[in-house]
């Protein structure tokens, strides 16, 4: 295992056994994500992108094979320990933004810090700082239903970065956005990656996301078909 790796998958298989016929979503995937990467896992629908992202983000465990996060075998962690790992080390950006509807933008960003037990004054300061950095300070007191999709997704990015995680996983982050808004969101993420060294892993089949990836992993039928570095 690479000493530098943030997350590493070794011969990972994932079989969903819920329906009449078991579905093998991943068939022996191995990969390593190093700090500072801007990686896109690309592939058609059903190729296993989201499944792989869920495993890398400690949201799920593989059927066989192992996933290590900073050297720690995730299959050996309890649900509680995995939740704690996600809270402190991983940020998520979801396709449907998934902000908490009753909270304002500022409170949504603060929420992760609340869960981390950060004192109120500090979490407010940090949340505001991130919103300003991301150019959405004016949205601080708006609730999700008062914001456009692009604005909500920017707030979701702010929520993901505010706790300074080691890794941010973004699952189809531009799927619900028009291309101009999607492009602005990607600019923002690239900027965070470049200036603050935040590590991003995307899953997407959106050409404009794929275009931006500095490392591309093409997934097909649960296998990494090819890898490109730019």
């Amino acid at each position, binding site marked *: 295992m690479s000493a530098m790796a943030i997350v590493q998958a070794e011969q990972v298989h994932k079989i969903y056994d819920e329906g009449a016929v078991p579905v093998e979503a991943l068939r022996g995937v191995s990969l390593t994500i190093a700090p500072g990467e801007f990686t896109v896992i690309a592939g058609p629908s059903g190729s296993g992108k989201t499944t792989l992202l869920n495993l890398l983000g400690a949201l799920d465990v593989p059927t066989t094979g192992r996933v290590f996060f900073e050297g720690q075998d995730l299959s050996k962690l309890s649900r509680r320990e995995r939740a704690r790992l*996600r*809270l402190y080390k*991983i940020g998520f950006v979801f396709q449907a933004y998934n902000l908490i509807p009753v909270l304002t933008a500022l409170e949504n960003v603060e929420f*992760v810090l609340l869960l981390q037990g950060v004192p109120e004054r500090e979490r407010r300061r940090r949340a505001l700082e991130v919103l300003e950095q991301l150019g959405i300070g004016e949205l601080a007191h708006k609730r999700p239903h008062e914001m456009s999709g692009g604005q909500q997704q920017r707030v979701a990015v702010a929520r993901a970065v505010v706790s300074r995680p080691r890794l941010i996983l973004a699952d189809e982050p531009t799927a619900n956005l028009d291309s101009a808004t999607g492009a602005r969101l990607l600019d923002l993420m690239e900027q965070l990656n470049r200036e603050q060294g935040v590590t991003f892993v995307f899953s997407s089949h959106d050409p404009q996301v794929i275009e931006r990836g500095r490392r591309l992993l093409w997934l097909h039928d649960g296998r990494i078909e090819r890898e490109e570095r730019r």
Partner: protein
Amino acid sequence: MRLRDTIGLTRVAWRNLWRNRRRTLIVLSSVVVGVFVLVLFDTLNLGMVAQMLDNHLRLHVGHVQIHREGYHANPAVEQFFQDAATVQQQVATHPEVQAVAPRVLAHGLLSSAYNNGGVQLVGIVPEAESLVTFIAKQLVAGRYLHGEGREILIGERLARKLEVRLGDRVVAMAARPDGQIGSEVFRVAGLFRTVSADFDRTMAFIPIDQARALLGLPSDAAHELVLLLNDARQAETLKAHLQSALPDTLEVLTYRDIVPLLVMQRDLYAQMMYLIYLIIGVALIFGIINAMLMAVLERLPEFGVLRAIGMSEGRLFLLVSLESLLIGLLGTALGWGLSLPVYAYLAHHGLNLAAFSEALTAFGIGAVIYPRLTFRVVWNAWLIIPLVAWLGALYPAWRALHVEPVEAMRAV
């Protein structure tokens, strides 16, 4: 979990409550009505049983009684004690004691020209007795005893039975300590009507000297000293004091010793209230489970997101619990807000149950019931209702906990 996390989560829980305003208001109103009913029912119930006990105590029993040792177990006419006036003076010096009255007591027969009936003859010092019990205020005809002459007070019901009126003569007969039968003629001076039908049928009051003469007792003899205290709760303490201060030949009893059934009944009523709490609690809990379950099920994807961003199971459980607990606390506060003015009105004017007064009189309660607010009522409502609300959240919270982030978010 730190307090500041809980405060933060409470804010989120509060906002979550108002996502579906109508649903929350419906559940909330059921809690409010539940608390309103409980508070009024409990306070009226407490008032009723307290009145029943008070009426019995102020009618005849008093708070503390002093007899010759063994009288309570065997209330025979020869079980009198002497130097009653000295004991009375000694007892009256205690600051807890408001008034003391001596009595001479005998079971006897009261006969008129038409009928007769068994009675408890009570020889009293009229002035002293009127300070301890309220028999003097219960007269419906005639006047109270002067303390001189052969006059008698009887209940209206007994008068009807004997077919006598004011001024008519009745003959009282009772066994004396020497085994002879004493008898004397008395003139009916007054008729009383109390809250107890039984009392009105069986009690007859005569001046204490007449009673002593009838029974052939010494002039300083008494069967009983009745004490009224400033506060009934001091009875047990005073009993202990008096027991050590008075000679061993005297027994000191509190109303708990004398009418244990009434005290038990009062305590039983208090226990029965818990049954009412249980019934209302069960009715409330299903409404709360239903509302919370709906609130949880429609937010499963959101709970998945919360789990994904690292919210622990404990915090998620706390969040759902807090939502329900807030309904319970708010409902209890509003229920109190609603019931206190009604309570205040009833505490001042009373609840007039004249329509049922016959039955209430038989129970020694009186037609007007005044509710009583105790710390127990406050404590019960503030503890039990929010607890019920919290219990109602357990199953919904359990459902929320078993959300797998991946599964839940798939539904997004």
